[in-house]
């Protein structure tokens, strides 16, 4: 499939596709971080995660419209405000869902999967009713438009770079929160031994709710970032849910580094293959390889060898 390209052309193609893949990587990382926290730490499958992301995207869309109408002077900075709103709105909905639904299902992971799927149907239809079936897009602030020219053939768009920086910063923040903070210690204590954690005075129900809300909040930020590189429709989230689950499982459910590595691998593979094959075949091959590897190594790439 490399016939007819010179080496330097190939290099540029890999660089450009590699960068295009980085946008996908950013969305994967942001989606997967939230999922990995909820799934890895709590064993809960949140099928509505994509819809939480889209909620964040709609929140960003509304914020940008509000800035455009009322604060045009500050428009350049709306994104940062939107990101905070997106986090808060999604975390609040997440906390509510945890209270109303998920907490009753902790011992039934397969049932959580079905219930949250029901939630995702309801949310999608709600978006359709409120925002219409058409996709909406935000206007990028001026400083985010344009691109940096690296070589004659390689152009890196600024919005893509920006989203990637956000993704990595959030990943870093999550790492510190989970592994370097007292709260993270509590979460991990509850994961490892719930009765013992309760015995030493940790409010495990509170930890559960906060963890779920945090995961959903991060999905909200993912949604905010998502608006920078694509337009938002009621079902946009569903397109990513299977991929992101594979990212999480592939990376090893309890490993944040694994999640990032697998997000990188999957997005790069897909994006590079896309240039040479049709988009659908690129996706088929990527997914097949991931599923194939998972069949050979079900514990994922980075899972600890645990005593069973």
């Amino acid at each position: 499939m490399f016939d007819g390209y010179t080496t330097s052309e190939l290099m540029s193609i890999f660089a450009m596709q590699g960068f295009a893949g980085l946008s996908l990587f950013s969305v994967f990382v942001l989606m997967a971080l939230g999922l990995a926290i909820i799934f890895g730490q709590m064993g809960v499958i949140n099928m509505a995660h994509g819809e939480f992301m889209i909620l964040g995207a709609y929140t960003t869309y509304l914020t940008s419209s509000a800035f455009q109408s009322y604060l045009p002077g500050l428009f350049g900075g709306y994104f940062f405000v939107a990101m905070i709103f997106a986090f808060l709105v999604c975390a609040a909905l997440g906390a509510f869902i945890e209270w109303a639904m998920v907490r009753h299902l902790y011992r039934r992971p397969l049932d959580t999967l079905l219930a949250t799927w029901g939630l995702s149907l309801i949310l999608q239809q709600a978006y359709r009713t409120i925002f219409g079936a058409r996709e909406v897009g935000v206007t990028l602030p001026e400083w985010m438009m344009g691109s940096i020219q690296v070589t004659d053939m390689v152009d890196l768009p600024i919005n893509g770079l920006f989203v990637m920086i956000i993704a990595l910063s959030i990943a870093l923040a999550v790492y510190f929160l989970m592994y370097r903070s007292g709260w993270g210690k509590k979460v991990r204590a509850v994961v490892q031994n719930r009765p013992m954690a309760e015995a030493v005075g940790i409010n495990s129900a509170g930890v559960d709710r906060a963890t779920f809300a945090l995961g959903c909040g991060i999905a909200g930020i993912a949604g905010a970032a998502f608006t920078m590189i694509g337009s938002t429709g009621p079902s946009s989230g569903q397109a990513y849910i299977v991929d992101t689950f594979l990212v999480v499982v592939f990376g090893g459910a309890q490993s944040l580094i694994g999640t990032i590595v697998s997000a990188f691998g999957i997005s790069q593979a897909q994006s590079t293959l896309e240039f040479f094959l049709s988009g659908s075949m690129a996706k088929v091959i990527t997914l097949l390889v991931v599923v194939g590897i998972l069949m050979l190594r079900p514990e994922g790439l980075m899972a600890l060898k645990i005593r069973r």
Partner: protein
Amino acid sequence: MKDSPVVKWLISREGLYYLALAVLLVVVLPVALDAFRLNMVGKYLTYAFVAIGLVMCWGKAGILSLGQGVFFGLGGYCMAMYLKLEASTPEATAIQSTPGIPDFMDWNQITALPWFWEPFNSFAFTLIAVIGVPVLLAFIIGVAMFTRRVGGVYFAIITQAIAAILTILIIGQQGYTGGINGITDLRTLMGWDIRTDEAKTSLYFVTVALLFVCLFVARLIQQRKLGRILVAMNTQETRVRFSGYDVAAFKIFVFCLAAAFAGIGGALFTLSVGFMSPSFIGIVASIEMVIFCALGGRLSILGAVYGALLVNAAKSGFSESFPELWPFAMGALFIGVVLAFPNGLAGLYQTYVMPLEDRLFRRKSGARGVPRAESATPVQAREQAAKAGDYDPMIDQYSPEKS
């Protein structure tokens, strides 16, 4: 005659439930509905095959597959390929640049029939493939996953990914598969026009007959030790393993069984609606199939039939009058069934209707003679008669929740 085991079974409580379903499907609905509506019911019933498979696989053995649409679709596509080839005679396709191949291939500049289409010229091969292809795929997935002890949520996600892969593949390979439109314009089955009302009504009865075959196969399995092991595996997998069973083999078996049922359902679906497309295969379609099973009661094979009928009837009803409300209803159904009624309709029936039945039954007959499915030795029979509660709860303490 009155003592024959079949008659005895039919007047037992369980038998009456089967009889009621048979009367509903064979007498009531055909009399009450016109040919168009009856064909719709036939279409819903093809989903009941999938739901029965899910009861065995998910309800009993605890293996949740979110990819049953794959097997349903493979069965359906096998049948569609046969029908399409029959419809694509050189005479009928004379205006194409390559006559004699399906029209969508011609549109996609394909000039010869692909090799994997060739065998579908044979009806016998098609019938084997309708079950064989889904079972083969299920077997490969099963061996890969279950021998490595992948289960639960991981299995669910991987089956879902497989549903995604197959859908993307079919849509992407337009020339070989008909793409997003699917395989359409199917006309005759061995010269028999399947589009007429009479044909559709006959197909309805074929569907009902095959449905009962599947129901009895499932019932046989759940009555045997095999069924007990499937249930036991669900809660105490380790104990089953250390009682000397190869747990993976049992899981592969039940997954293949569910795939076979789904394949049969898919083939009948193609016959009933006259086309097959990727929209019946994908993630959304596959997970909807789980709700048919969950609504009916995840442990009840009869419930699965009612679940498939009700959800699909409701879906059609909503889509005709309030299409925008359907996703809300469906979402609420998922949440409600999981949170409030984990045993679905069968569970509700057992809680609320069966006590009424019990009162009714008791008034009518003091001691209900209860037959056994397994042939018992005379000694055993006496022993059973002596002991009021029998060893086999599947029959005697019959509960729809479990059957």
